[in-house]
């Protein structure tokens, strides 16, 4: 009996010691996000899945697009593989905060409000503006024409509240561009409020949008940036991305990546190349 009691006691002590060691070691083992990524061998990008040609899916369901290609090049520079996780405008920051993704690369504009919550990486990788797509019959020829009208939009876009406050428009925000366009075609709204270049490309890609026009002057120039978490652990990751983007701009690689997607004419990208 006493032998068994001795064994149980020493077993309990062994477990307690192990628990204490593990508790301390988890504190010591805390490294920054970039080291974690390199150790794991993959970096998780939060990307969109329905914004052609920045980030969409091919017929097999694989992510493709300008942002996807850029992500792959950045991952190459870090020496890791990519993992793409689909996000939307309304959950991309939450996914980042929860750790589901390491980097947001999802057509996200750099705004002061977002900077309070995430660490925006500069330089920006793209720039766009706000515009409205509508039928000529709707008579939207100037920004004043959207006053008190119903517009379709995408949930999470920062200019939805701007349009509602400045012009009193009612912005019906849907999950993504396809749903908003379906509602526009039905007549639920007079126009689709979205990013200027995305509107132009969507219109070119879809033959059934051929009788729609994008007639307003693009306003609210907005710069798109990648974002990482706002804690000090992600600082080295932010630096690595920043260096990577700067190199891609200066060498003209970013503009080259944009050309096959019809984005080669973007004035921001052209201005950033040093030649």
């Amino acid at each position, binding site marked *: 009996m006493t032998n068994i009691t001795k064994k149980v006691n020493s077993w309990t002590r062994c477990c307690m010691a192990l628990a204490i060691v593990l508790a301390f070691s988890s504190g010591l083992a805390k490294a920054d996000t970039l080291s974690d990524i390199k150790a794991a061998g993959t970096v998780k990008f939060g990307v969109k899945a329905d914004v052609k040609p920045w980030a969409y899916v091919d017929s097999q369901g694989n992510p493709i697009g300008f942002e996807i290609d850029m992500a792959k090049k950045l991952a190459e520079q870090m020496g890791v593989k990519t993992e793409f996780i689909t996000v939307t*405008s*309304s959950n991309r*920051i*939450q996914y980042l905060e929860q750790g589901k993704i390491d980097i947001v690369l999802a057509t996200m504009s750099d705004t002061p*409000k*977002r900077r*309070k*919550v995430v660490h925006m990486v500069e330089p920006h990788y793209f720039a766009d503006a706000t515009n409205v797509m509508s039928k000529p019959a709707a008579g939207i020829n100037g920004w004043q024409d959207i006053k008190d009208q119903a517009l*379709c939009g995408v*949930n*999470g*876009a*920062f200019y*939805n*509240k701007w349009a509602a*406050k400045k012009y009193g428009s009612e912005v*019906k*925000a*849907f*999950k993504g561009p396809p*749903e908003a366009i*379906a*509602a526009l*075609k*039905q*007549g*639920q709204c007079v126009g689709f409020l979205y990013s200027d270049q995305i509107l132009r490309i969507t219109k070119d890609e879809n033959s059934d949008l051929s009788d729609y026009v994008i007639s307003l002057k693009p306003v609210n120039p907005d710069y798109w940036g990648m974002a990482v978490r706002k804690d000090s652990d992600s600082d080295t990751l932010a630096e690595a991305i920043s260096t990577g983007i700067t190199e891609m701009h200066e060498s003209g690689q970013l503009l080259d990546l944009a050309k096959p997607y019809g984005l080669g004419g973007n004035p921001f990208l052209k201005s950033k190349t040093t030649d």
Partner: protein
Amino acid sequence: MSLEAIGTIGNFDFTILYDDFDRNRFLRSIIYTMSISSACIVISTTLGLWLALVYHSGRRIPRLLIGGFVAIFRNTPPLIQLYFFFFGVGAFFGGLFEGSLVISATTWAVIAISVYITAFNIESFRAAITGLPSGCFEAAHALALPRYLILFKITIPLTIRAVLPSLTNNLVELIKATSYAYTIAVPEILYVSSQIWADELNVVEMMIVMFVTYSALIGCLIYFMKSLEKKLALPGYGAS
């Protein structure tokens, strides 16, 4: 303490307390949810009772049709029904008459949710009707009461008493189902909350507010249904 100070206690940011724009749209959304719910409750309860009575009358073709209706709208998820009505049927209507016949998203939401809960109500009312004591009807026949009198003086009052617990369940589900309308941009509570958290980046705060709001709304419904049950309870009937 100013509202702004209360709203930004700790790490929280309850913008609906101090920001006029957010507060107004949130309050309007509560009214919206209550209106949609009321419309759906009236439609689905009336239709449920009427169709259950028709089903109970036993004629073959109405039974088949009603059975088919219940099967379709009970066996499919409500969100898919809503998408089908808004994006599917809506696109068809939008193409007719050069887009002059546009059915608003709110109308589609009321149609879809009413029809969904009607399917459940038909079954609840049917259970209540078949559970009615046959002694009442034997007595009515013995008194040679006409059919319409039996229907309005005996069947319907007794059915309403019997159906209340099950109906309460269905109506609670109805109020919760109104939140599906956020996918078609109907400005009810969930939609407006998601707009606010997209603009202000205060997800957790709006989640808390939504939970409290929906609990309060459904709590009111349950209080009303329970007091109705008490009022209509037959003395000496049921477990004491």
